[in-house]
């Protein structure tokens, strides 16, 4: 199954390749612009193709990710999906308050994190033990903040705030508070 790490690896490869290509292109351009040679401009047709290419590229990225990244349909349809587990979490005065000391769910289950802020804007992020991020959302006071997720790998996960809420909130970390079992 597609895990968020896999998506990030794909993105890293795609963007790195793109960055190398554009840097090489600019280097080639910069070298050749100073050399004598044919000094033409693009034909109108080629220019139109270029514009169409940019439009297709911009739009197709979102279509491709919505079809391949599994959490997108879950996220967009979360109002209609019944979760297997729901955890109601409150944040107040720079502290997370969890329903249980350890929240437990199973691989493949649909889990809903319903997080409420009683004062400031916070973030809610789930991290692996190697500190990489599984997923996150903003926690805005006065609104429902619900993140639905299906975990693909068993293990212990840490929750930390992913949004700045003043200097007092810079270490809002609760280690291993979530356990995903086989």
């Amino acid at each position, binding site marked *: 199954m597609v895990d968020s790490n896999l*998506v*990030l690896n794909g*993105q*890293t490869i795609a*963007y790195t390749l*793109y*960055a190398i290509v*554009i*840097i090489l292109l*600019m280097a080639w*351009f*910069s070298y*050749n*612009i*100073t050399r004598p*040679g*044919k*000094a*033409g*401009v*693009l034909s109108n047709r080629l*220019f139109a193709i*270029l*514009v169409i290419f*940019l*439009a297709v*590229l*911009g*739009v197709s*990225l*979102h279509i491709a*990710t*919505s079809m391949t*990244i599994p*959490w*997108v349909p879950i996220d967009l349809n979360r109002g209609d999906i019944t979760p297997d587990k729901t955890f109601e979490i409150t944040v107040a005065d720079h502290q997370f308050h969890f329903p249980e000391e350890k929240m437990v769910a199973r691989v493949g289950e649909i889990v809903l994190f319903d997080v409420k802020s009683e*004062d*400031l*804007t916070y*973030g809610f992020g789930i991290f692996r033990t190697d*500190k*990489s991020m599984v*997923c*996150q*959302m*903003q926690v*805005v*006071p*006065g*609104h*429902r*903040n*619900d993140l639905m997720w299906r975990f693909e790998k068993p293990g212990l996960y840490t929750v*930390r705030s*992913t*949004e*700045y809420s*003043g*200097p007092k909130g*810079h270490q809002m970390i609760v280690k291993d508070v979530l356990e995903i079992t086989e």
Partner: protein
Amino acid sequence: MSFIDTFLNGEQRLFKPNSLTPMQKLALRFVVVGVLYYGLSAIEGMIMRIYEIQPIPGWDSEHFFAIMTAHPFVGIFGSSYSIVFGAFLFLVPFLMKKPLWSIKLGNWSFILITFGTLTFWLTGFINHYAPLYTLYWPLPADFSQFNPLGGAIFILGIALVMVGTLFFVFNIFKTIAYTPEGWEKVPAKAMLASATGFSWKESIFRRKSKRRDNLVSLPVAAIARGSVDTFLNAIIITFTGVLILVYMVAALLGYDLRESAIDALLYKNWFWWGLDLIADGLVLIFVAGTWYLLAMLITGKDLYMARIARLALWVEMIVSWTVWSHHLLADQAQPVVLKIVSGEFVTAFELITQGLAFFITLITLWSARPLKMTNELKFLLGGLLGFGLAVPAGIIQADIGLNRILHNTQWIIGPHVHVAILIGLVMTLYSAIYFLLPILTNGAKLYSQKLANFHFWAHLIGGIGMGAFMGMAGLKGMLRRTIYYEGEFNLYMILAGICGALLILAFLAFLYNIIMTLGVNGLIGIFMPSKLKTKALLPEEE
């Protein structure tokens, strides 16, 4: 010439501040202060870089976040706004061959932006007011963490900058529309319509033979369209500032206003709507306009596809009013339709508009091949590369799926923000500075080409490198705006720190080069009143 003589009087004593017109002085004042504020922002950035490798003993987290709050404001308002406003207040009259509407108002913009920046920076330094530039409600009014008096002075500093900004916008539009003494009446409405692009139907749908000439040139149109966003942004920031001030003044008078009276999500929407007019509005439009102008000046040729470029600038302005939701993709209460339409698809239009600006500039340059690799051309190519890298990075994060794992990580602030600003925007500004230097100084000669070359390479490698290593850390889960105490991401942070140091060295080389070019006396002379009583841009030939 001895070292001391050059240091005091500039390279070959060519720069004579007494020969400057009030307009040249106005532009130079803005540029000099803008460059100095860039240095301040870079030093703050470097302090944060070091802190993110190893927290500095004796500096607590409050200090760190106070620096993080001041840093982008100093960089964007104190530096970028100053340089851009100085250049444009000179260029609009230059391109339109008519005097600036009011030099006095221009000087007021300069004074307000310079002292406004100094005010918020100093209060941030002393008082540690640190809600960060996003000002998420109700953090700016959280007086259990921040002192309301310090906060009020900080907001006042920002307000001064905004008033200076509004003066700039007014001056630009007045200059486009007014009739100077002794001139034939200028059609003010038509000029403004042409400048802002609201006469676009005219130029697109009319048959070629019936088409009327555009009343203002393309670069002036870009400046005007960017100024529309600058205006809207200033209004939103001022409005938000006043709102926060109300809470602060109430707290100082002993009243505790209810914070929940303001809806945090609605507030986030309007504030990002306004804030994004900088990032996705005026920066992109001003930069595209500057590329076009520089390409035309460097090649001496007309712009390739000028009509499309003009239309793209207009589209960019409209697009910039409708993309703010890409900042709220991680907000679950944000309506899905806004996330998809504004956050994803309208945002993707920026790939088209900025892509067009990128290619139109490159093709115009190519049409004049072979070109000499001057400083302005070098830095212009650097600026193009910066946006070539940073815009696609932005499009990637403006995706509902990817934003879930990229939001608030170092990816956003590295490959996207810092590459866009440091490589895209700042290198474009350096290109304009190198181009304008002889014009604004009546022929001062650059002290050292070797230093200019070093400036270029160190800035380019440092900026791209810093963005890349921040991006790598972000992809491994490192958050932005976060202190890691166990050296979790130190490999990337040390590498980013080395690149940051390269950026600082680049800046020092540039600063030294400019001091030796103009001399300390010359630099001081820029800030003395001009002896020439003229509205002309350049001194009259003797």
